[in-house]
């Protein structure tokens, strides 16, 4: 049986040379993403804004304007109405009820339910959620904290296990991944809710995973080929790990595609975010984070190349050590 090979053996793409273009493209896309978030804003769900969300199933595709009119007549605030999942389902979001306690919010759910059931016979709720202002502030804070600590924690881990340059380049690449994902949410108008925080953390975890594998190979090759130029080591390492990088990404994307197409509408934003995040994460692993190591001044003999050490002794020692231990690449 002939086995499948997505990436041919012995690729030798000069990724480091492409880094000028890659950095430009990355920067441009990041700026576009920031602009999109700034201009279009994010479609925040009730988890983060507080208020209530009712997802209503109708027996036939409902006229959105008629639903809006029905809800508006109840005088419970401006309703944001959006179609979710099938054409028969609408999500209706209402702001926190002014100066009222939870009893009033419950009453609003009942009022909207009753009004819709009367106007559109057969309409029932498929789910609803109410979130108080205090809780939504907490969720926002905790979500932000979770993302922040994930980035910092993993960056620290990379610094402890590798060199500081690895930590920095990884964190930069992750910030890029997150900006892209945020830009996607601004563009697509998918609702940003608690699930999306989980998606973000997963993207971070996955993207790091990808970078650590390449970093690990760079470190290994730095020890093996002491005399090799840094850009060659990086090119070699990225090329050597390329089959794995592509293979893993394709596998996860296959699994996510199944979830995206068949997993139902509740998870659609979540899976879409992960799908995009993995594509972006793979790109940044190959083009951004490793090449950034050169820009950050990673040199061979990392143990003696810490910033602040005397440059002259470093060169001498590395030459001696390299001369003794150099091994040719086995073919």
């Amino acid at each position, binding site marked *: *049986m002939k*086995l499948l*090979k997505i990436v041919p053996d*012995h690729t030798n793409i000069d990724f480091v040379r492409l880094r000028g273009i890659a950095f430009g493209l990355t920067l441009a896309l990041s700026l576009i993403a920031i602009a999109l978030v700034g201009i279009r804003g994010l479609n925040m769900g009730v988890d983060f804004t507080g208020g209530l969300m009712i997802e209503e*199933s109708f027996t036939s595709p409902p006229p959105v304007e008629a639903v809006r009119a029905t809800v508006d007549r109840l005088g419970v605030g401006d309703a944001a109405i959006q179609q979710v999942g099938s054409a028969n389902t609408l999500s209706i979001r209402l702001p926190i009820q002014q100066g009222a306690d*939870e009893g009033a919010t*419950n009453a609003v759910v*009942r009022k909207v339910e009753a009004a819709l059931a009367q106007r559109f016979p057969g309409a*029932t709720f*498929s*789910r*609803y*959620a*109410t*979130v108080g202002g205090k*809780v939504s502030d907490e*969720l926002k804070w*905790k*979500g932000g904290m*979770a993302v922040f*600590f*994930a980035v910092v*924690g*993993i960056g620290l*881990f990379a610094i402890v*296990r590798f060199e500081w340059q690895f930590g920095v380049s990884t964190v930069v690449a992750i910030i890029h991944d997150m900006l892209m994902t945020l830009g996607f949410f601004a563009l697509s108008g998918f609702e940003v809710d*608690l*699930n999306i*925080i*989980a998606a973000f*953390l*997963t993207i971070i*975890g996955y993207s*790091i*995973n990808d970078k*650590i594998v390449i970093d*690990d*190979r760079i470190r290994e090759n730095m020890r093996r080929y002491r005399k090799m130029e840094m850009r060659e080591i990086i090119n070699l390492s990225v090329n*050597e*790990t390329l*089959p*794995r990088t592509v293979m*893993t990404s394709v*596998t*996860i994307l*296959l*699994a*996510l595609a*199944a*979830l995206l*197409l*068949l*997993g*139902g509408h*509740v*998870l659609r934003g*979540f899976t879409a975010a*992960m799908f995009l995040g993995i594509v972006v994460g793979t790109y940044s692993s190959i083009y951004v984070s490793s090449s950034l190591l050169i820009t950050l001044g990673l040199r061979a003999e990392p143990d003696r190349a810490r910033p602040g050490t005397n440059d002259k002794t470093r060169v001498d020692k590395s030459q001696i050590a390299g001369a003794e231990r150099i091994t040719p690449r*086995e*073919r």
Partner: protein
Amino acid sequence: MLDFPRWKVASIVTVLAVLCLLAFPSFLPERYTNRLPHLPKINLGLDLAGGSYLLLEADTADLANSRLEAMRDQVQTEMRRATPRIAIGDISARGGQLTFMLRDPSQVDAAREKLLGITGGGAGLTGQRQWDIQVVDSSRFVVRQTEAGLNQAIDQAMGDATEVVRRRIDELGTREPTIVRQGASRILVQVPGLQNPQQLKDLLGKTAKLEFKLVDDNANPADVARGIAPAGSQVLAYPGYPGGRIAVKRSAIVSGDQLTDARQANDPQSNAPIVNFTFDTQGGKRFARVTQENTGKLFAIILDNAVVSAPRINTPILGGSGYIEGNFTTESANELAIALRSGKLPVNLKVIEESTVGPDLGVDSIHAGVLACTVAVLLVVAFMFLTYGRFGAYANLAVVINVLVILTVMAVLGSSLTLPGIAGFVLTIGTAVDANVLINERIREERRRGRSVVQAVELGYKEASRTIFEANVTHGISGIIMLVLGSGPVKGFAVVLLIGILSSVFTAVTFTRMLVALWIRRARPQTIHI
């Protein structure tokens, strides 16, 4: 690496076989597993099973207030009872503290002694003072509750409240509710498969503080209408009564704590819904004595500080039981009966977050999730097999076992499978496969460098293991952060992710290495197809 002693093979196979077999009850329909309640079976989260999630928060300010008011009443009574009597002016209970003047400044020491007794002396069981007593200007007392005292009171109230909430939810006859205290003043309630969440909320929103007090018939109706009560009495709302207010004596004859039972019933004459109740022995005796002494007068039945009804005592009530009538529907009477049976909440609870999923959406989500997972596994399995042949097949076996192991571990730990959890499964499949991709690509590489089969396999596993370890640690870091800081769906996702990380290292590395080793030892291949 080919050295896999027999005992090692046997123990790996046994552990995995047991873990996989234990996953099966989770796939069986409920009618079979109901007969085997001891087998671990995975719980479905609310988003899959349908049901309600409520986050309740205690009104701690209200608790502090009522604690202060109780202390005021106690101080008044005790000062009056003291010998010689300690005369004090009006006690104000404002700004979180009690303030009162002594009429005779020479009684300062006696008053302080008395106060120390009431407030539990210098130190309670925990060694911390509950109340702070200060004397200002030689005759003015300021009594403040300490932070520690209030926190202890809140803690105790929350413990009791959690029990009351549990009893009330149990009365609704729902299966497997989750009721846990969260933080200092919150209770998290999850009730799967509930058809009518409104009923649950109404029930939990009731404090159900029941009191029986005598009506103060000496009160001036004009004063009562303005909300002014004679000394020793208080004005309460009484919907349906002329003026909407009524004056009652401050001290209760009997309270709801002294009930042993309460049931919804119908009035034999009017057929209107009522609530029958039974006092405990002590409460019954007390009620009998007071009604004997006050025959012909009115007494008020007070629920949550509002009068429900104020019937006349026609004959002494000696049997230790009675009924409450009011403007009830069958449902509201039943709710009241449940609330009375389960005891009063020591503190008001408010719903600050709620999420309810209808049963239909839950069923749709399960179907979609199972379908998506099956397709995802099939796609990944086919892709792996096409890419790595025999080694892909080993990896696939590891992935399937991994899924079963995660299910078992979740069932044993009692964590619920949620929709984000299903997404976590899909992602875990991806990362588990990644470990094998790393190993297999490394073997390919080593073969290209001209190493022998055994050497290549050995080096492939050895070199890749380090990378896999590092990758999983970083993944684990984000998983732990999600578990600690995340709430609701994020937690559900993190649980699957973390279990998956642990089990996938075992299945994807150790287990496949064993399979490869056994194969190489048996077949002694000169070349491998990878």
